[in-house]
């Protein structure tokens, strides 16, 4: 595949400031490259440099292997189209006239748009679901309609490179997918697309490759799977997130959990949480936010609790998916429970596979430092009554039962305060 748009060690910016330094990236025909990064990182500057609105102070930007410096504005507008973030329309052109303005670089000075130009405009307006707006004044349209009209205006330019600057921000769910499906289709038809995304799920879903712009530098660049990782999100966006594969659409999905800044800095005690089957996620998050040194008990890979604990960066004892808690794991859990100030058992179902884990924490923790979330009845006992009996014994020995994660937090706070355990 041939490179349509290339940044070759390009330094980009505005008079007096370099915004992006030494960027190297190339976008081939048929490819969608997603640009992601925090606000102000230089994503828009990367796009603006291609249309001459930002300066290239070192290196080069090339369109179809020709340096931008050698391409005049009209020729450039035939090669590259930009769908802007914000469309201004403080004048009463009809939507059709607005779209036809995109033909400008193809028309000679006195030439009026021909029937072929108008037919092309009708076609792209049908593609962008704006045909019914043709005779409306653009100053009366909603932000979403305007944004799709702006895409139509760009498509009549018939560019080989398409730049999208967060172009779906004003669109509803349906039109967002519609526009991005269309962009994907255009790319499959041979267009090269470079698109700024704020929505990482959409970036992952529609991009062949993702490039990260952070603090004026470009990189890493790679498949969504390679680039969208917990450590990258923590470093670039300062967010702890669960990165997984969306089970329905099969693309990488990112669920932000916590802002780095929201993470507590004090450590009023070490808490071990025994989780599983997704029952511990709110508990882990609540205790973590409150600043406790949270450790997670035996969790199987693939369990949501496992993903949450990993996203929060918690130390955890893990097992392969569906594996039973063996002696080694039970011993590690017991050791953890012994050094913890508080042990919290989430509202987990208990069966043969994880009964040893429940036993281990009940044995190791003193009754005063044991907190059980939820009542424990036969509906959660898949171990023939053994689990219920163990819990009943613990409660009669003095373990505390609480209703939910918030109550557990209050209880944990009470225990650590009474014990004066804060280090």
């Amino acid at each position, binding site marked *: 595949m041939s490179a349509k748009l290339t940044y070759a060690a390009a330094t980009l910016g505005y008079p007096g400031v370099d915004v992006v330094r030494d960027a190297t990236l190339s976008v081939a025909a048929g490819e969608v490259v997603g640009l992601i990064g925090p606000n102000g990182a230089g994503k828009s500057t990367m796009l603006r440099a291609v249309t001459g609105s930002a300066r290239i102070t070192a290196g080069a930007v090339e369109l179809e292997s020709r340096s931008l410096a050698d391409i*005049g504005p009209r020729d450039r507008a035939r090669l590259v189209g930009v769908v*802007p973030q914000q469309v*201004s329309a403080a004048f009463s*052109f009809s939507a059709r006239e607005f779209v036809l303005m995109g033909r*400008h670089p193809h028309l000679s*000075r006195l030439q*009026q748009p021909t029937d072929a130009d108008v037919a092309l405009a009708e076609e792209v307006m049908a593609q962008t679901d704006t045909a019914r707006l043709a005779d409306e004044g653009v100053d009366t349209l909603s932000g979403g309609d305007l944004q799709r009209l702006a895409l139509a205006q760009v498509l009549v*330019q018939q560019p080989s490179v398409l730049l999208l600057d967060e172009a779906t921000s004003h669109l509803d769910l349906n039109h967002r997918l519609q526009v991005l499906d269309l962009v994907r289709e255009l790319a499959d038809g041979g267009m090269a697309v470079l698109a700024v995304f704020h929505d990482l799920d959409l970036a992952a879903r529609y991009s062949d490759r993702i490039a990260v712009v952070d603090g004026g530098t470009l990189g890493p660049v790679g498949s969504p799977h390679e680039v969208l990782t917990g450590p990258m999100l923590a470093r670039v966006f300062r967010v702890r997130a669960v990165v997984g594969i969306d089970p329905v659409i099969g693309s990488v999905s990112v669920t932000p959990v916590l802002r780095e800044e929201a993470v507590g800095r004090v450590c009023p005690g070490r808490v071990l949480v025994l989780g599983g089957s997704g029952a511990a996620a709110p508990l882990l998050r609540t205790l973590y936010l409150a600043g406790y040194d949270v450790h997670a008990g035996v969790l199987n890979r693939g369990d949501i609790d496992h993903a949450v604990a990993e996203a929060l960066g918690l130390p955890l004892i893990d097992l392969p998916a569906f594996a039973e808690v063996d002696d080694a794991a039970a011993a590690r859990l017991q050791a953890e429970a012994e050094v913890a100030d508080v042990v919290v058992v989430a509202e987990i179902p208990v069966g043969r596979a994880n009964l040893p884990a429940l036993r281990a924490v009940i044995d190791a923790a003193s009754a005063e430092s044991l907190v059980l979330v939820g009542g424990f009845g036969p509906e959660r006992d898949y171990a023939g009554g053994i689990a219920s009996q163990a819990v009943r014994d613990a409660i009669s020995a003095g373990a505390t039962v609480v209703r939910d994660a918030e109550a557990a937090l209050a209880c944990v706070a009470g225990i650590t305060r009474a014990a004066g355990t804060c280090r």
Partner: protein
Amino acid sequence: MSPGSHTRRRITAIAVLTVALGIAMLAGVGFGAVSVTPADSLGAIGRMLTGAPKLPGDAVIVDIRLPRVVLAALVGSCLASAGVLYQALFRNPLADPYILGMSAGAGLGAVIALTLTAGATALRFGLVPAGAFVGAILTIIVVVRLASLRGVLDVTSLLLAGVALSYVLAALSSFIMVFFRESMTSVVFWMMGGLTGASWPYVRMVAPMLVLGLAVPLFATREMNILLLGEERAAELGVDVERFKRVLLTAGSLLVAGAVSVSGLIGFVGLMTPHMVRLVLGPDHRVLLPASAIGGAVVMVLADLAARTVLAPVELPVGIVTALVGGPFFVWLLVRRNGHR
């Protein structure tokens, strides 16, 4: 609307306005101290153009009324076209050569030229328009610089800078007039904003400035439409924005200089005409610019007719008529704009 119907609409609009201009000019020639019938007017003009022997009544038509009406049409056309160019350039419907201070700048340039050429009438026809042109273009450069001191060129700063500079430039003009008393009479006469001294040499001076100032923008009406989308968007669509802005500024200054050097300071024609045309025909410059050029001529011919006849035999400077109508119009625009927010 197909391109064909667009072209038809454009041609219809221009045709209707041209007929209106013809009627207004006939009225302008016909009314006055001595009434002349349209038939007599047309006859006299026909005899002038064909070089046929003149009738006794022709002199008043051909040498007095006609140059004045033609000059009014040219001046109105210059001002309205300049208004269209500046409104496109600044994407601001309140832009107008008078409000932007360019008329005052052209005025100062013309005053300097008038003072320097006191007594040398032959020189005036060259130096006055040149001075007005230099004054207009320097003023608009300073106004734009002042208005964009804080980084962005916003509407309020632009209008404030224009008005402030207008006062300074008008004061400088007065200062020069006080200092060079011997040339004061002719300058004051000219400054009032009128067409009283109209003659064929004036017509011959303005006409080329109108043609030059209008020709280039008429070939760039599509770019003017695109410029309304914002400078960055225009660049993305293939317009060489910086160069195009300079072209519009130069053409506009030429038009303002043309109007100012023969008629002094006449306000609001450049503001009102494009607005009225836009209300009826929409914002498309392919129609707006030629229609405003003709519409401005109609407005000015009628304003001059009113100035001559309303209080006859007293003749008002035409600037007073346009200001009396245009001032309230400007306020109405402001109120309407704020109502939209």
